């Protein structure tokens, strides 16, 4: 059973992205979760090309995106501008909000209710 919303988590570090995806998979087996971290050559940073590719490769039309630090957000926004997906970007505590979202999407809670709950975790402008 798939879900309507897929999740894209973007970190500056590949290990953080992969680790987060491991944490989320545990509570959200049926949610498609794609994790992108670090630069092309494994350094700390973000990689537009892989973010773009991951975003476009979801089967789901709706993609919820989470990021750690600001420059990941800029890459996400660039990718959003040229993507067909309906992407929603969350300026929330990275790990905690991705965990909350994954649990609630898995539990088939309605979108609005999830967004309300995530709003409490907003910490970035």
């Amino acid at each position: 059973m798939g879900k309507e919303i897929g999740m894209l988590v973007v970190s500056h570090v590949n290990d953080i992205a992969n680790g987060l995806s491991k944490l989320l998979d545990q509570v959200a087996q049926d949610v498609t979760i794609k994790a992108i971290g670090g630069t092309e050559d494994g350094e700390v940073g973000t990689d537009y090309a892989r973010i773009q590719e991951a975003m476009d490769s979801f089967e789901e039309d709706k993609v919820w995106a989470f990021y750690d630090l600001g420059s990941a957000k800029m890459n996400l926004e660039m990718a959003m501008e040229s993507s067909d997906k309906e992407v929603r970007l969350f300026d929330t505590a990275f790990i905690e909000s991705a965990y909350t979202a994954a649990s609630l999407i898995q539990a088939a809670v309605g979108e609005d209710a999830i967004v309300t709950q995530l709003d409490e975790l907003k910490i970035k402008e």
Partner: protein
Amino acid sequence: MVEIESLKKWIELYGEKVTENKEHLNQLDSDIGDGDHGSNLTRGAAAVKEKVSESEYENLSDFFKDIGMTLVSKVGGASGPLYGSAFISMAKQAKESDDLAVLLEAGLDGIQKRGKAEAGEKTMVDEWIPVVEALKENNLTNKVIEDSLQKTKDMKATKGRASYLGDRSIGHIDPGAQSSAYLFESLLEAGVLNG
């Protein structure tokens, strides 16, 4: 007054129960958590069994302390520090009392001190509170244990991982309450209270 031998039996039975019901506990936890409660406790129970079988205990306190520290170290989930704190707290209390109601009340205090959950938050505390009450009044029965367990079903979780689910946590039995129910069923089966 309780005897160490019957307590050993108690802990042994508890370990067997969580191990046999590992998948059931995992299932309960996967409904409202991360699905590892059975695996966590089975790992803990195996470590406790090994630890306890290696040792001769001259007093209750050392026995409880070994159990507590082992659970803290081996369980890996929230239930590790919680059950661990229960037994460590019982170890302290055992220096002053060997009354089971008093000991388990200290255990409950340990859980609440660690996890800050009150009654009604859909945690193991909701199993412990009525059991401790019943023990004090000398009428712990399987019915008390089972009724408290079922009551966690309608509660909304406001502590632990299940609290992320908000209203969606309603309608499921709390896994930690279930494993605590096994703990208290084992207590009855081991005949600790007839001691």
